[in-house]
Structures are given as C-alpha cells and as structure tokens.
C-alpha cells in the first residue's frame, strides 16, 4: 500500500514539475508574451538589452532545470520509503518545497529584469491599459448546461449511497450502511464538482485581453483562450463524474482501500492528461496570435515577483495569471485579502496536520489499569473505562481479522483510533496499535471498545489485570 501511495505521489509530482518547467521557462523567450513574469518588450529583443535579458533568462532556466532534475531524483528516492506517517510527511514537505523551489529562479529573474528595465529607462506602457469596446463583457465560451449536466449526473450517484447509509434502501454488500463513509466521499466529490463549476465561471468571466487594435483579432484570441478554459473545466467535471461512478460501484459491490486507490490513480491520471492537453492548446493559441500582439501595456510593477498580483487601483478580484495558466486574485482587493489569508491558513493547516499525523504515529499508545479503571492514552486522547461500567470483556488474538470501517478518527497502518464500525457493529470506540497483533474487546453500557497497548505484552498485561479483578466475567 505504501508503494502504491508513493507511486501516486510520484505520478503527480514529476509531471507537474516538468509541466511547470516548460510553462515557466519556455525555450524561446523571444517569441513569448512574458519573460519571467515581465512583459516581453520590443527593446528586449535588440542590442545590448537582448544580451542582458538572454543572460538573465538562461541562468534562471538552467537553475530551474537543475531543480526539476533534483526533484525527480528525490521523488524516485521517496518511492522507497515505507510507513504512512513518514511517507505523508516527506511527500507533503517535498511537494511544497518543490513548488516553491521551481519558482525561486523565476522570482529572482523577475527582480533582475525589473532592475534592467529601470536601468534602461523603459517606461513606455506603464500605467496604460486597453479596453476593446466591441468585446467588453461579450466574449464567453462556457454554457450553463455544460456545467449543470455533469453536476446533475454526479449528484444522481450520491443519492443511492446516501439512502443506503440512511438505511432506506439496500443495494449491495460493498459498504456497511450507517458508516456514512460512502456519503462523505461522494459528498466531497459533489462539492468538488461545484467548486470546479464556480472556477469555470470565474475564468470565463475574466477580463478580455486586448492584444491588437483590431477588435476581431481580440475577440478571436479571447474566445480561443476561454474555450480552452471551458473545455478543460468541463473535461474535469466529467472526470469527476467518472470517478464518482467508480466509487459508487465500489460502495455498492466491493469496497477495498486498494480498489479505491486504483480509482483515485485513474482520476489523477486523467486530470494530468487534461492539464497537459490544456497547456499545449494554450501554448498553440499564444503562438498563433503572437504576431498580432502589438499593443503594449505595462503593469509589471503590480506583479510582485511576477507571481502575486497587487494593484489597489484595479477593482477586479480575479485576473489571468502571468506565470503558468489559469487565474489568480488581486491581493489588494478586500476579498482578495480574505482569500489570500484563507489560502495561507490552508497551507499552514496542511503542514500542521502532517506534523500532527507524524506525532500520532510516532507516539506509542499506552494501555494500563489503575484504581478500578482501565485507561487508554496517547497524546491528548484518553479513554477511561470504569470497571463498574464494564459488562463483558473478551480477548482477541488477531486484530487483522476484524472488519473495520473508520467513521471518524485516525486509520493508518500503525494506528487505529476513533469511532469505527467493527464487524458490522456501529459506533465502536477503537484504540489499537495493529502492530501489537492482539486486542481486548470491552462491552460497556454505552459503547463497545476495541483496545490494545503498543505491544502484545502490554495488551496481555492489561487483560490479565482485568481477569484478576474479575471484571466483566
């Protein structure tokens, strides 16, 4: 399973790094609209300025290529790792570091190019923007039904899973009704579909770029770009539906972690193919219209490091990205500040959650008896069961024989903790280290507990203490 998880991460991060490299550092900068997040001006393509720009650009490109190669090597090494916590921690940290690292040469190059512009006194176009009256608000490529249809189809597959979880219907033997795992996962997919739809409309409503004084050229250019965006998002929505159908099949007939991971891999694979097609079409559009790009407006100074848009004079919230493809937010906009803060919090949250998972896995659980009660303890979690509440106690030799479905809590190779459905019994409190092998089942008035110590001996010792007290026998 850990090799499989590693493979999924590898298949995601390596193509992402390669796509990022070719998108951020294309071979022929002379033919591109932007260089390292700075507008590619006519002056950059002649005389001494050309030499200086080329030197800066090639240096950054070489550095980025080095980062990609090192990134691929590290990804291959990470494939050899075992252990969920270590894998998750290192992959998460690596992904964040890799995405930051590949942007560093760009940020440095962006600063150097802006310095060069200042030294050369290139100010033409600063503060200038163009608007095409004929196309303002007219160019759209996304139709409402294109988005509504996949969302509706996807939602159809959520309903039976929800009804089964509620116990209204019985469809198959894939999942235990009442665990709400199926409803939760399918609900996330439906939410994902709605999020993609919102993004699709946001990108379709982006300001039309004015590249030429000919309105027809501007209209065609923007329509082509928006059509590419629309196709990508619609494709993404249908891939989401296919994923939901796959998951629904698993939930109805035969659920297993391995099969759900295979479905997830297919989903990610299709998304990666979609991204590659989108990027390639975007490049083709840019190349096709390159000769028509005659109007020069320069808002380089509003792009911090060429990546973050901050322009208090611009009232728009979303703008097209300069680096890569897609859109970004204006961090000077009040809503942009809120969204930027939320994104930073999410990033911090994901780092902290990985640290927390790592702590959970590296801290052994403890099981002991004291003063008429049995205590399960790890970090901040504790189950205390008074002897007086115990109705029955039994000892199990092999924890792997239990059929467990997590409802809430932690479920990794090293730790099972929280609320689980165990052998079709709902709402069981689980506190197990699978490595210990054995376990104690404790039945109280309110709940059923499945507990173990970090080792088989610790579990055995706690069980013997219960036997000695004659609890639950």
């Amino acid at each position, binding site marked *: 399973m850990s090799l499989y998880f590693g493979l999924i991460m590898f298949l995601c991060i390596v193509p992402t790094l390669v796509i990022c490299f070719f998108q951020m550092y294309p071979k022929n900068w002379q033919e591109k609209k932007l260089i390292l997040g700075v507008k590619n001006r006519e002056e950059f393509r002649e005389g001494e300025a050309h030499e200086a720009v080329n030197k800066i650009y090639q240096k950054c490109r070489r550095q980025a290529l080095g980062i990609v190669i090192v990134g691929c090597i590290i990804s291959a090494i990470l494939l050899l790792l075992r252990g969920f916590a270590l894998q998750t921690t290192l992959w998460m940290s690596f992904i964040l570091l890799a995405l930051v690292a590949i942007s560093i040469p760009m940020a440095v190059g962006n600063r150097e190019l802006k310095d060069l512009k200042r030294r050369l006194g290139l100010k033409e176009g*600063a*503060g*200038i*923007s*163009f*608007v*095409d*009256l*004929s196309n*303002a*608000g*007219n160019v759209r490529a996304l139709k409402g039904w294109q988005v509504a249809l996949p969302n509706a189809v996807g939602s159809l597959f959520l309903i039976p899973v929800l009804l089964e979880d509620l116990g209204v219907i019985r469809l198959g033997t894939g999942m235990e009704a009442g665990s709400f795992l199926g409803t939760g996962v399918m609900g996330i997919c439906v939410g994902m579909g709605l999020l993609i739809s919102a993004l699709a409309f946001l990108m379709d*409503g982006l*300001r*039309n770029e*004015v590249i*030429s*004084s000919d*309105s027809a050229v*501007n209209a065609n250019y923007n329509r082509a770009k928006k059509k590419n965006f629309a196709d990508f998002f619609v494709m993404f929505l249908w891939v989401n539906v296919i994923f939901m159908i796959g998951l629904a099949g698993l939930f109805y007939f035969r659920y297993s972690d391995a099969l759900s991971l295979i479905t997830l891999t297919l989903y990610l694979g299709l998304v990666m193919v979609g991204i590659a097609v989108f990027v390639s079409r975007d490049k083709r559009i840019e190349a096709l219209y390159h000769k028509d790009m005659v*109007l020069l407006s320069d808002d380089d100074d509003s792009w911090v490091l060429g990546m973050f848009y901050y*322009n208090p*004079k*611009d*009232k*728009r919230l979303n703008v097209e990205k300069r680096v890569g493809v897609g859109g970004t937010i204006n961090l000077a906009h009040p809503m942009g500040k809120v969204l930027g803060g939320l994104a930073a919090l999410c990033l911090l949250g994901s780092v902290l959650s990985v640290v927390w998972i790592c702590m959970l896995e590296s801290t052994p659980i403890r099981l002991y008896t004291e003063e008429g009660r049995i205590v399960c303890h790890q970090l901040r979690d504790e189950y205390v069961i008074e002897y007086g509440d115990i109705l029955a106690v039994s000892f199990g030799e092999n924890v792997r024989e239990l059929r467990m479905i997590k409802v809430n809590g932690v479920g990794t190779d090293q730790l099972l903790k929280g609320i689980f459905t165990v052998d079709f019994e709902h709402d069981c409190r689980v506190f197990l280290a699978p490595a210990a092998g054995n376990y104690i089942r404790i039945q109280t008035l309110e709940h059923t507990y499945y507990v173990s110590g970090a080792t088989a001996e610790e579990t055995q010792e706690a069980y013997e203490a219960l036997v000695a007290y004659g609890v639950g026998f």
Partner: protein
Amino acid sequence: MVIRIDELSDIPIYLQIRNQIVMGISSGELGAGEQLPTVRALALEMGINTMTVSKAYQLLKTEGYIMTDRKNGARVRLEIKMQANIPEGNKTELRRIVSEARISGVSKQELLRLVNEYYGDEK
C-alpha cells in the same frame, strides 16, 4: 474600437473614456446607433469603479453624443446635433496647443498638416 486608459495621466479616467469615445465617433470607428458596452461590463473590463464609467456615459449623453435607455443600454446617437462652432473651452485648449507648438519651434505648416490629418482624413 480599442480605447486606451492612462492611469498615470493628469486627466481623470472618466474624461479619458469620454474623449476617446468622441474621437471614435469622429473617426467613424463607432458608427451611428452602435451599441456601447454596459456600465458594469466596461467597468469590469477596465477594473475601475462603475461610477467612473457611469459619469463618462452621463457626460456623453448630456453632450448629445450617445443615448441611453434601460432596455437597450447605451448607443451612439443616430444623428448628432451639429452646432458648427467650437466651444470656448476648446478654443482656449486649442490656443494653448498652438502656443506650445510655436514656442517649441513647430512650424505652422506642420501644425496645419496635423490638423488636416486629424480632420481631413476623418469621415
């Protein structure tokens, strides 16, 4: 028709919009009865406040260049009233331009050539 907005200019943005639409009408780039974008769409495209665009449209309407109604939005007037005289404000502006050109050594012929180019080639 493409209009150019200079954020760093001393001329307010609503006046820049107004001036360029007037130039567009004069050059024929904006034909009689041609639909103009809605206030909201134009403000969104420019990344400016809707009030700024509204002010420009209001001015154009007052001056008789465009007509607006709730149903059809803003359109270039089918017939613009020809007063055949230059307003005092524009005369002063023209005088300033001619004076500055003379001081900086621009010949009368060159100035007239420009006037001919801007006036004569239009329409």
